[in-house]
């Protein structure tokens, strides 16, 4: 691994022009992916990732470069090349890297490297069997197992020098149900900042697999969803993707700092129903989106984004803090050394309210119950969001009625948040991968069951 002396040389090379800040990010990652389809282990792939990213900045302007080389000459040259984009006199900044701090906030019991590929395959076989045994209409099951150990080192010209290890694993089960009429799929993908103990101590593998099949079969026998504006009850767990998409992205400094977000300049203002308190917390023990340090070498923390409907905090990285003249919230994250860090979510959720799930359903005369959400996206400048409903039911006269498929929810984040009129007390989180400027990163989404008084529902059945 690169020693302190070399890292310091690279950092000084980055400061040879007019730059006032430089950072070195070193990544060494080992990942195993195993996939099964048609009950056969199709692919077992291990990959070794190694690279170094160098960021050089003046004020909030930065340049970034990366390479797989760990040779001193190559890295000094990269830093020096990057420095050339800042013209002007050298600032003669002096610094010394502190003693390396090692992140250890999330304990791992069984490292993936201590488990044989055969044991990992056995796990997949168990999931496959459970998913297939669920119903004879399950015609295909695809399973993908992933684990990795990502070691990162971060050093910068403020003296920061930290090392962090992220150990994550995830089991994705995709079940397909088919009859003469159609094919429908159901997905469940539990994961966490855990080693192999995740599959014995934390989740029930068979249960997770059956859940994917249950959704596929339910949707196989569902009717097309009607379209139109209606109240929508969004269930806990992955339902939190509504907040992630409709609001979370618009609270990231990447869009706020440039004034491109609908929430720019609205700190202290009411942006959501008073029932909504929303939190982004990168410190939750062993959660999927947690780490000890963020990818700029700062300790992860808990951020209250919205308190009782009032905008309390954005998610801000180091450089955007300078641009916004606001405090850094230690929100810098990146997929790998191939990306410069920027403000990103970690584990984001809406806090518990006071209603119960049953009360919310009973209080809804007609509407859509979105039990499982699919993915979605948002356009931060307009706040327009869309997401698909993976498992939906109509609500009629305060009761859950027939299942419906093919529904999409569209709206604007700012409006939807204001229209939240009931929040339950059953907070649950689920795992996702979030793609944005600094790559694809693990994030948790979460919420209790909530009701939005009106959302446009798009379905193939036409107006209700």
């Amino acid at each position: 691994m690169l020693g302190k002396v070399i890292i310091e040389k690279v950092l000084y090379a980055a400061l040879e022009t007019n730059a006032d800040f430089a950072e070195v990010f070193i990544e060494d990652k080992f990942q195993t992916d195993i996939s099964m389809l048609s009950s056969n282990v199709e692919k077992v792939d291990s990959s070794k990732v190694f690279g170094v990213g160098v960021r050089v900045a003046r004020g909030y302007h930065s340049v970034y470069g990366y390479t797989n080389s760990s040779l001193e000459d190559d890295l000094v040259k990269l830093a020096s090349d990057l420095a050339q984009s800042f013209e002007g006199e050298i600032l003669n900044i002096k610094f010394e890297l502190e003693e390396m701090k090692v992140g250890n906030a999330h304990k791992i019991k069984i490292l993936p490297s201590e488990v044989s590929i055969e044991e990992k395959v056995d796990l997949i076989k168990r999931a496959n069997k459970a998913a297939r045994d669920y119903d004879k209409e399950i015609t295909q099951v695809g399973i993908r197992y992933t684990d990795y150990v990502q070691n990162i080192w971060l050093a910068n010209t403020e003296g920061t020098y930290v090392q962090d290890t992220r150990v994550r694993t995830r089991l994705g089960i995709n079940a397909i149900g088919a009859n003469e009429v159609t094919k429908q799929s159901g997905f469940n993908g539990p994961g966490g900042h855990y080693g192999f103990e995740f599959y014995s101590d934390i989740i029930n593998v068979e249960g997770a697999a059956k859940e994917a099949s249950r959704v596929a079969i339910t949707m196989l026998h569902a009717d097309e969803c009607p379209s139109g504006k209606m109240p929508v009850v969004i269930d806990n767990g992955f339902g939190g993707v509504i907040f992630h998409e409709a609001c979370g992205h618009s609270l990231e400094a990447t869009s706020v700092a440039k004034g491109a977000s609908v929430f720019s300049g609205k700190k202290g203002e009411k942006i959501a129903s008073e029932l909504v308190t929303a939190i982004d917390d990168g410190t939750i023990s062993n959660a999927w989106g947690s780490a000890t340090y963020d990818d700029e070498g700062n300790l992860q923390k808990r951020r209250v984004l919205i308190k009782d409907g009032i905008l309390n905090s954005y998610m801000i990285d180091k450089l955007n803090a300078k641009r916004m003249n606001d405090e850094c919230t230690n929100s810098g994250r990146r997929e790998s050394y191939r990306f410069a860090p920027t403000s990103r979510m970690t584990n984001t959720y809406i806090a518990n309210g006071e209603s119960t799930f049953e009360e919310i359903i009973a209080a809804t005369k007609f509407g859509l119950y979105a039990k499982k959400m699919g993915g979605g996206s948002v356009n931060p400048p307009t706040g327009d969001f869309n997401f698909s409903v993976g498992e939906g039911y109509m609500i009629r006269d305060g009761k859950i009625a027939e299942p419906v498929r093919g529904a999409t929810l569209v709206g604007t984040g700012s409006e939807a948040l204001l229209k939240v009129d009931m929040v339950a007390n059953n907070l649950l989180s689920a795992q996702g991968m979030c793609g944005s400027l600094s790559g694809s990163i693990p994030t948790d989404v979460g919420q209790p069951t909530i009701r939005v008084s009106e959302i446009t529902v798009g379905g193939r059945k036409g107006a209700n």
Partner: protein
Amino acid sequence: MNFELLFKEAKAKGIEDIQVYLANDSDFEIEVFKGELDTYNIASTKKLSVKGIYNGKMGTVSTEIINDDMIDFIVDSIIASAKTIDSEDEVFIYEGDKEYKVVEGLYNSSLYEVEAKKKIEDVFNLEKLVMSKDDRIRMVQAFYGDGSRNVLIQNSKGLKLEKLVNTGIMGVYVIASDGKDQRTGIEYSQSNDYKDFNFEELATLGAEKAVSLLGAEPCESGEYEILLTNNASASLLAPYVSMFSAESVQKDVSLLKGKVGEVVGSSIVTIVDDPFMKKSTKSGSFDDEGVATSYKKLINEGVLTGYLHNLKTAKKDSIKSTGNGFLSGIVPTNFYIKPGDLSYDKAVKSMKKGLIITELAGTHSGANSISGDFSLQSSGFLVENGEIVRPVALITVAGNYLTMLKDVVGVCNDLKFNFSFIGSPAIKIKSLVVSGI
């Protein structure tokens, strides 16, 4: 790394055949925002992917640390990987084709003859140009990037192939506001010849895309005639590309299974996979397995002619690989709906009551490649009697992709490719279900 040494070690440990795939990439990227250089990235990376046959199974491994010290790790990983695979599919390391077509125009040094300073200056000017187009333009992000990739494939059967490709992209992301409503537009062009970037055109089209949508509101729910613009149609085709993979067909997850020779689209629909297209990084005379690539019409005048194959799926179907075996699986090269003769303006004029859809959001989640169903948030324009009446947003357009292909009633002549070289001209659809107010 000494590949001959790797091959020798592999053989000694019982690996029958082995192949390396080495990619050397270099990338450059800049973005300008509000008169300032917002992004400046440079990168040079290399990645080695190795596969080998052990006891009849294919083991794989990849590494970004590439030196002779890694040889043991590579060989051991391949064996460990192969040992647990229980798929019965026959696997291959390819000895090579007799002939590989010479594909011209895949690398152009003009991208590097223009200095970084000049590129930055051009992008600054592009931003200003867009701002000057309309008072309602609030912000512009202008960007440029180029990248090159050198690929080397070498195997223990004596095959050695090399190719060098590059491409550049120049574009603008525009935010317009009229005080009440805010809209965005993106316009870009891709080429490996720097002279091809037309700043005036990029600025005009980018500005127009954002400004023309200002004041957009949902339209009434119902069934509408639909004109998907080239960008919109390409983005809708993208999630359905996997249907054409023979792997999807053989695993029974493709809607096109068992439909070769059948009519799956309107007679004016032809879908092409063209590995010989100039100025595309997806082009080349061989795939990642070393198989010679080929031009093919997967749907010819509405009739499905076949699927995309790699060595494994081709063997199962007792045919030749189509040269679509890539590291990421069976994927097309340059994949597009073949343009027709209809002009875009004429297509608009021909609509009585319809919608032009310029943008479809969330195709990664709202378009289901297994069922073919889609329900997508869209924006565009309401058309009545051949005239654009007003912009429309926050609606969903829903349908089924295969049904839609049969309902294509017009194919325009304005083929355009997205970032991953999936392309389409604007296409006119008989009708789709629209959900608005």
